[in-house]
């Protein structure tokens, strides 16, 4: 049997943060299951999901932690930021308050993750155009001022959900490629797939395709 590596070569850890009810769990579910959960209970804890994606020909395993948004859990969920390679910061475009709180979420993220952590801002529920409470332009400006990547998405229709997760991964992968992200740092949020018996040389495969990545 010919064929390339069967397995992933990196593991990226993501966290999803933002006020309660903005749709964090729905985004995760849409991304891993391609389904929308209409009546999703509040997350009381931290949910966990995984998916293997393909970035520049590399199989990457995403380990995604979906945190509880309720204010009273804030102190506890801070424990989960550490070691995240990507942070998806979500607000609800139909509820201004969730947008107003972004700066406090951002402060936490900056304080608790490392400088190379990729922060991606998601304005969720963009299917509810009629109830829009936050304009695209102002959020876009906020993102730009703070150096965040940004899209508006809908966990309901699936619009831009895939993109947000994948773009984040690409950005992380680029950081690895140009050495900004130190894989050996304990808290980089990226792991090389552990070498295991059965098939070796995954890492040497990685080297090969390193340079012709065009993303």
């Amino acid at each position, binding site marked *: *049997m010919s064929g390339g590596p069967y397995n992933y070569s990196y593991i990226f850890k993501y966290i999803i943060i933002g006020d309660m009810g903005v749709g964090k769990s729905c985004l995760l579910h849409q991304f891993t299951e391609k389904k929308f959960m209409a009546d999703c209970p509040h997350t009381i*804890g931290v949910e*966990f999901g995984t*998916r293997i994606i393909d970035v520049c020909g590399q199989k990457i395993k995403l380990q995604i932690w979906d945190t509880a948004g309720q204010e009273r859990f804030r102190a506890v969920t801070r*424990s989960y930021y550490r070691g995240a390679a990507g942070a998806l910061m979500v607000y609800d475009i139909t509820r201004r308050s969730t947008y107003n709180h972004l700066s406090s979420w951002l402060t936490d993220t900056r304080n608790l993750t490392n400088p190379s952590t990729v922060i991606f801002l998601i304005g969720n529920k963009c299917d509810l155009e009629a109830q829009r409470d936050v304009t695209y332009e102002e959020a876009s400006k906020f993102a730009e001022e703070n150096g965040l990547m940004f899209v508006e998405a809908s966990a309901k229709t699936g619009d831009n959900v895939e993109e947000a997760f994948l773009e984040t991964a690409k950005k992380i992968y680029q950081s690895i490629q140009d050495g900004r992200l130190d894989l050996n740092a304990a808290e980089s949020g990226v792991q090389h797939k552990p070498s295991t*018996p059965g098939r070796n040389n995954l890492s040497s495969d990685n080297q090969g395709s390193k340079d012709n990545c065009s993303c």
Partner: protein
Amino acid sequence: MLSINQDIFEIIQAKFSSSEVVRCIHLNVSLFTELSNEEYRILALVTKKSNSALFLFFCKKPNPIHLSDLFIETVIPIDENFECFSDTILGEDKYLLFIVKYRNFILEFRIKTGLESSNFASEIIKCKERSLYENCDHRWLFKYSDVKSPLDCTENKSQSPDIPFVRQNMAQNQNAINRESMLKYQLKLKEPEFTQYQEFTIFTGTWNVNGQLPSISLKPWLSCDTEPPDLYAVGFQEIDLSKEAFLFNDTPREAEWEKMVLEGVHPNAKYRTVALTRLVGIQLIVLINIKHYQHIKNVAVDTVGTGLLGKMGNKGGVAVRLDLHNTSLCFVNSHLAAHVEEFERRNQDYKDINARINFRRHPTAIKDHDQIYWLGDLNYRITELTTSQVKTLLLRNEMATLLKADQLNQQKERGNVLLDYNELDITFPPTYKYDLNSDTFDTSEKARPPAWTDRILYRGKGIYQQKYRSHMELRISDHKPVSALFKSEISVINQAKYRKVHEELLKRMDKLENEFLPQVTVDQTEIKFDLVRFREPQFRDIIIANTGQVPAEFEFIKKLDEQSYCKEWLRITPYCGTVNPGEKCDIRLEVNLETDLVELDDILVLHLNGGKDMFIIVTGKGQRSSFTTSMRALCRMSKPIMTLDDEQYRKIIALDGEVLYSVPRELWLLVDHLYTHGLTVKDLFESNSTQDSFIRLRDWLDFGSTEPISVSVETVAETLLIFLSYTKEPVIPSNLQNVAIAASSNYHNCKNIINEKLPDIHRNVFLYICMFLQELLRHSSENGYDAKTLASLFGEILLRDPIRNSKPQASRGKSNFIYNFLVNDLSTSIIPIK
């Protein structure tokens, strides 16, 4: 090292019959459950026909040198019930856990990570995969029935579910072997979806050149067909009959014949050598049309000598294996034992070659290839006919009679050699033995009967032989070359389809992985305790139910920057454990308040190993109590603490208000009771009173009562000890403890500390207690106490450590300090008591 392994390998092989082939072994395995390293074990993967089994050997020595050093401990057949996977061992990166399962039978080994283990694991996986396509027949294992084997493990002895366990490991990413082998297995199943057959022409030729120099063009042999073949496999025998070649296995002929072959191949295509292998005079060259070169992978060769002493290279076989696209091919060129009557020797040579060719990569054996082409000077003769009879029959073209007398046909029919191989009907004259440079059969004195010594056979699916012929025009040898042309179906991967299937499988496995994450529900995530009172534990039970498909390992974990997984007033039992799918587990949360905390508030993090975390909120209100209130505040209270309204309470706690008593009223009540009722009670402080009576006394103090104390004097004594043990500050404040201990040998210094360093109320309490103890000692004949005992009991309490439950420190110093005040006159420091 390698040679040791080889020796052990051979010893292990000797344990088995020749049809049971040891494919590979793994040394130095230990059972995971075994702690001693005194035991040596070896794993061996053994194959018989298409069946495999894993054998666990127990050895008496680290490196067994004798058959008797080894015995078989366990046999595990490899079939669809067999599973294996690896896992990490916590805190060890040099070793990994290698788990083998057969239904409910589980063995866990600790093996060193490295090439040996990875090769061994992949061999096992290959066997497992193959077992899925073949009918498994484990009867050959029955003779090992006296050893432990999962074959006789009955179904219903189930202790742990099978699949989920594997899946759980998948979920935890700890099991790449498993994920990978599962993916490969699934891909294999789906192969028809992404492969198609493509016809390749394969030219195979064999020629015994009788030691002659390569002096003539091979074109008439190799290029006799109109179309150029895709692949050539050309075998020679006896390319060099010199002693040097025999002894040193080195000959200039090798390159010369290769050159001749390259010059002789079909002119309408370009060829490239894929492999060349030789054992003395037996040489095999495989060439590929260069347009297919990139689709050839995993080329390997091996040679086996079966000549002199059963191992020299004057006879034997050489083999080349390769993967062409998605089909594995094996070419064997053999030169078997000579002489008419030696057909059994030839059969044995054939078996030895099969058994001993080992490509050291998958598949390792000849028989495991999709297509096998076996060519060579097999040396089988025509029996029971004289030379002249043969010649006459040939002239009359009575081939059927002749072929019936052919030993190879006879032996094959009896199943003694080349079983399952096919050979096209022979239509060409015998290829042996000719006078050199002629087409005349042997005219020498010996006049050997002509024979079809040179043959080509094949085995496998999708092979269609087109031609089978000899080539008379090559006359330099006493043999004529033979060739066979095949049209063979080669499985070719359609890359686009393959990628699609691969992608889909990955997606499905992602989904499985999420599905097989551990899942539990907790019946309550908010736990409210009623009013929590001092030293009156309450508990609530929560139920963790496993609603997922894999066992869930749970544990309450620490939050960032916290010391413990819960606050000090809470206890969780059990705080970790495993719940099997469909099962439940009760967790008891117990609060026990020993401080003046009012708001009890904690968020517990219930972590599932390899899965999500759940938060559980615990809240409650702590009730105020004199036991946890500072003595300075208590001395300002005119009435029991619970009878104060909130405003009064707040003021007093803030030490706003007049000091009304020199010692806390509660302390006085307890000690006074003991003065009256306890001085003559034996072992006053040693009884264990009930929780219930303590609570009655606590409430009697905190709420106040007009009733007299209704509990035993021992309870009062114990409550006094509790009261002194929980005062907000130790009676001798923590910052004075070391000074006090240092001073303990000198009463004067001790007295100074008490008089000058202690806050007023603490001094009063201290002296008050000491005076009571002196009074107690005056009745020592009745109560049995002496000064030393009391000093050490109260030293531990009055100078208690700031952090409860930490190891008692310098208790001799503490008790010496107290001792001073029990044996000296205290009348100089009399204190007034209201």
